[in-house]
């Protein structure tokens, strides 16, 4: 019964998507050649790119993912540590730093790319810096705000049972902030993804963005659309992964919200 419900819900959600591709397929034959590709052609081209014995597409995907991961992990560590610092024991510095950080956050990340190219030179370092920059702010701000709003009665409760500073942190502040951290991580994973692709299309020798830009140069329509779809699917998968992780780690929160 439950499984049937799931299938039903899945089909309902998938319906517009299927309709979209069907319309696209029909429409593509009525549009002048060289403007859009058809889903059928895209699927064929992408399939070929996937099973390509030299693994060109997969290799470039790997390059991008590895850079995203490095920049993202760095942003997570620095963002969470700084967020906790300015949200808890160094709250007094909040007034000093937060306005400046807010300005930094508002800077257009795309405008930052050329600056980082000058600072770090075009290459891995620059790309990682771009991802770091984009991913850092949501993680930092969410962690900081979460830690700041910790329920003081819970802290008092822990302290009344003899908890020291360390135990108050690990036993109360950290678990209390975890949902906010997850929100930050999820938001910035998306940003990280798109910023990486953007920075790769602007200047790179490999990566998914580069791959996409290459297809544009040779005007291989099916692969242009194909790589856009592929990037989207990857982003959806990453988001899905986060939803799963949240469900797993935040049972008490997920259920409490229902």
């Amino acid at each position, binding site marked *: 019964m439950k499984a049937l419900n799931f299938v039903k819900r899945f089909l309902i959600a998938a319906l517009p998507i299927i309709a979209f591709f069907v319309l696209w397929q029909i429409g593509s034959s009525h549009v002048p050649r060289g403007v859009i590709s058809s889903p059928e052609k895209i699927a064929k081209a992408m399939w070929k790119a996937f099973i390509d014995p030299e693994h060109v597409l997969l290799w470039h995907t790997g390059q991008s993912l590895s850079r995203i991961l490095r920049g993202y992990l760095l942003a997570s560590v620095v963002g969470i540590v700084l967020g906790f610092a300015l949200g808890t024991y160094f709250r007094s510095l909040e007034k000093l730093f937060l306005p400046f950080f807010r300005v930094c956050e508002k800077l257009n990340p795309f405008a930052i790319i050329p600056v980082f190219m000058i600072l770090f030179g075009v290459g891995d370092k620059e790309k990682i810096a771009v991802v770091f920059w984009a991913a850092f702010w949501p993680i930092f701000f969410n962690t900081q705000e979460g830690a700041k709003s910790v329920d003081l*009665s*819970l802290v008092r*409760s*822990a302290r*009344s*049972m003899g908890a020291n500073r360390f135990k108050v942190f690990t*036993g109360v502040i950290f678990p209390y902030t975890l949902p906010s951290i997850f929100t930050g991580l999820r938001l910035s994973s998306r940003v990280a993804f798109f910023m990486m692709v953007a920075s790769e299309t602007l200047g790179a020798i490999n990566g998914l963005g580069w791959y996409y830009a290459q297809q544009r140069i040779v005007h291989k329509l099916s692969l242009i659309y194909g790589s856009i779809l592929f990037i989207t699917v990857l982003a959806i998968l990453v988001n899905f992964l986060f939803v799963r992780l949240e469900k797993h780690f935040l049972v008490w929160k997920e*259920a409490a919200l229902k």
Partner: protein
Amino acid sequence: MAATAAVLEGTPKIEIRGLGRSFNKKSNVPGTKTKEKFFALKDFNLAINKGEFVAIVGPSGCGKSTLLDLLVGLSKADEGQILIDGKAIKGPDLDRGIVLQGYALFPWRTVRRNIEFGLEIKGIPAKERAEISDKFIKLVDLVGFENHYPYELSGGMQQRVAIARALAYDPEVLLMDEPFAAVDAQTRETMQDELLTIWEKTGKTIIFVTHSIEEAVGLADRVAVICRSPGSVKEVVDVKLPRPRRIGDVRNTPDFSLVSHHVWELLQDKAPEEKTPRAQIDIGEEILPDTVI
């Protein structure tokens, strides 16, 4: 059991001597701070014997929670001191457990793991922790709910978890801050009786803060009546009702009414500068039991 009414002899379990605690007055202009101080507690004296059940009753804002904070060791007194077994307290310790106003359960911990929190701090190994938490889950009648999260429990059940958590690391003194204020009347009476049973079984020294006269008189050996601004003990009233006691059995007795009425009178007798009309005195719904007058 250890419930004989108070005759102070030897060293009391807890001795509060000339206690004073001040706060900075809240400024009328938002965003600014005044240096002006006011005393929430001043010249507060009270001695409590081992195994005694003492209720502290007073209008809201009279410094009851402030007093418990000092007793737990969460804040420091400006004047005077608190002695436990003759020694001044230095900070929170596992010889005192508190049930805070509003439960303060950890929402990310199950019932069992909430109860085990203090045991973890004490460094007790997992197996022993489980045995102890089992015992207290039984004591507060929560068998079958060990793995539930707080949000899955009713207010009364959450209160039981908070009590079990405070009892689990075996403190000699149990402090309770208006623990039953937020539950409905029927649950409250059940919980009050359960608390009496637990007290009879464990022989803890209990300091029970409430703003309900009926609750104070129904539960305690002695009732300390606190007057407002600055909070200090106005009178300690002996409750010589029989033990073991059930609230429902004593509520309609003449003795109960007499004591309640006396406490009520003490609370009405306000400082001359305060002209709060009777109806506005924030002292809970049960100002006067119907049986009196």
